[in-house]
């Protein structure tokens, strides 16, 4: 799960990593007062949204007075911030972080991620701080160092040394860098993070390492041992349909197309989207209804699909494994009737009792078309929505 910069910094602080003084604000007045409180001649006002690249989009501004800070906040709060990571629709700025300024002597990039290939935690560092790391990795891969730490090796002093040397720092920084890296590594593991990105990590003119920005992604699966994750959920940052689906236990991701998809299983759902695209239409969503496609669940799924006004037709693709297809067909028909569905729907049911299911669909009296295979179904729905 994504969290805000200010929350990420709270976690870092908890693990002994110092950040600059900052105050979270919800109104221009609070921002004005924050300027006074921080006692820093220069402050930075930063939009708190679940997306990176805020600077380019106008979500990070410097203020040299309380008035200036307030007037920045007046524009920033409520604006729709569009960055490389928000998508076209952007994100509405609901709160800002006002942070003290710092005298920057150097900027670095530093992140921790899960290294899938080596089953390890990887440090990624670069002396090119503040840049987008994807760009650096494409244009100058030699400027990035990745060090994988296997769990039974642990972070060790030779790892710190390698990072120090790669960043071009001298011996005198070894102790401080070591402290920072050990705290970060510990925080990453203990808080079950999927990603921790500090960009830039700055070295101040007084030779302190400070994370100027911090982005953390937490591993939702570990929420059972970190109840505080619940406090960090900010539904306002997510797509409302995705939130609704999640609360109903459905796995839904909104896309830009016009064919609503309802599939059981994540892999099959992706494959279904891909096949629709192959036939010239475009999927409106990813939706995995899971293993139990009963009428209640299907009804909720229909409602979510229909909330997306772009949707012109629906493709239901279920491979009935343990679940019997005729049961699913009944559920689909009942749900469609309950909500008075009028959109064209192509239904493909494969697996146990697929024939009986097809008959039920055909005889339902609804606007249902039977797909005989994944390709056949995808083709039929694509032709319909392209009309």
């Amino acid at each position, binding site marked *: 799960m994504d969290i805000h910069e200010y929350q990420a910094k709270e976690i870092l602080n908890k693990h002994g990593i110092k950040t600059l003084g900052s105050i979270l604000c919800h109104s221009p007045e609070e921002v004005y007062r924050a300027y006074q409180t921080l006692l820093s001649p220069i402050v930075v006002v930063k939009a708190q949204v679940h997306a990176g690249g805020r600077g380019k989009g106008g979500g990070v501004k410097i203020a040299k007075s309380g008035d200036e800070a307030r007037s920045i906040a007046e524009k920033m709060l409520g604006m729709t911030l569009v960055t490389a990571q928000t998508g076209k629709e952007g994100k509405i700025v609901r709160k800002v972080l006002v942070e003290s300024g710092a005298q920057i002597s150097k900027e670095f990039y530093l992140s921790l991620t899960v290294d899938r290939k080596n089953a390890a935690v990887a440090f990624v560092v670069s002396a090119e701080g503040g840049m987008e790391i994807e760009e650096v990795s494409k244009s100058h891969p030699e400027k990035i160092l990745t060090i994988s730490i296997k769990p039974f090796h642990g972070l060790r002093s030779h790892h710190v040394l390698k990072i120090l040397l790669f960043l071009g720092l001298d011996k005198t920084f070894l102790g401080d860098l070591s402290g920072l890296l050990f705290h970060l590594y510990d925080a990453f593991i203990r808080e079950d993070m999927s990603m921790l990105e500090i960009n830039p990590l700055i070295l101040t003119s007084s030779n302190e390492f400070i994370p100027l920005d911090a982005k953390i992604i937490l591993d939702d699966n570990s929420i059972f041992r970190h109840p505080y994750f619940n406090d960090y959920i900010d539904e306002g940052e997510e797509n409302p349909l995705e939130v609704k689906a999640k609360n109903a236990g459905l796995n839904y991701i909104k896309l830009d197309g016009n064919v609503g998809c309802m599939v059981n299983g994540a892999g099959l759902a992706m494959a279904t989207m891909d096949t629709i695209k192959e036939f010239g239409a475009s999927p409106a969503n990813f939706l995995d209804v899971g293993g139990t496609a009963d009428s209640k669940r299907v009804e909720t799924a229909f409602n979510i699909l229909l909330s997306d006004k772009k949707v012109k037709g629906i493709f239901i693709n279920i491979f009935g*494994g343990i679940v019997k297809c005729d049961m699913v067909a009944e559920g689909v028909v009942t749900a469609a009737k309950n909500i008075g569905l009028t959109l064209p729907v192509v239904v493909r049911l494969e697996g146990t009792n697929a024939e009986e299911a097809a008959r039920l669909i055909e005889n339902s009296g609804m606007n249902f078309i039977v797909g005989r295979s994944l390709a056949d179904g995808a083709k039929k729905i694509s032709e319909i929505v392209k009309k």
Partner: protein
Amino acid sequence: MSILVNKNTNVLVQGITGKEGSFHATKCLEYGTKIVAGVTPFKGGSRFNNSVPVYNTIDEAKKTHRIDATMVFVPAGFAASGIIEAIEAEIPLIVCITEGIPVMDMLNVKAALNSSNSIMIGPNCPGVITADECKIGIMPGFIHKKGKIGVLSRSGTLTYEAVDQLTKAGLGETTCIGIGGDPIIGTPFIPLLKMFEDDPETSAVVMIGEIGGTAEEEASEFIKKNMKKPVIGFIAGKTAPEGKRMGHAGAIISGGKGTASDKLKTLEKNGVYIADNPSVIGDTAKKALKLS
């Protein structure tokens, strides 16, 4: 022949009295799987389905039974403990169905596996089946038919789709393995590809990948260097957007890496027969085997 499991495999079920565990243990028994024992803490001494003895720990079960494989249905928060218990009990094959295990737990499990002689399939997978012999998992048994294709997949229902086609195409399967949809899994494609290459009954392998990570690319390099048998590849997620987890915890494109098109390019370069869409997996397999 087949790989990993066959009709002589003695199977344990961890979490046999739970909702999922009991449902699927019953289905496996119906398929003919030799489930010899179950484990659920504090349920030791009882019998599952009036027949399978239940123990508190694997150690207890091992006193009476030879155990070749275990099917793990332990809830996510305790799954790492259950898997490590199986590793410590030296169970040769661990099939973990459980979804939602934290990645940090899996890093430890993976380290434990590396220092052991156990093989783990999963987690977050449909399991392993050798057609008509032994099913350890949650896949529908009836779509499988003894034949000549080995199947490897990061997915669940998409695997059933492929198997269904292979069965209907008259090819049938040897062993079908869902390797799991999580970022860190017990066994990636390569060791299993090697087993299929060595298995005399397997004529070709279907490998179903998806976005995220680089497992398919690494597999294709192995295929190019080490495999004589044809491999048919499909990658799901051509239309998936960046930065979003597509259901599976491991199915995510991040930092522009792990896209379907990158994977397909590498697979093709390394001589994998590409199925352009899931409906042609069966046909592609036939072509690869020069049967059509």
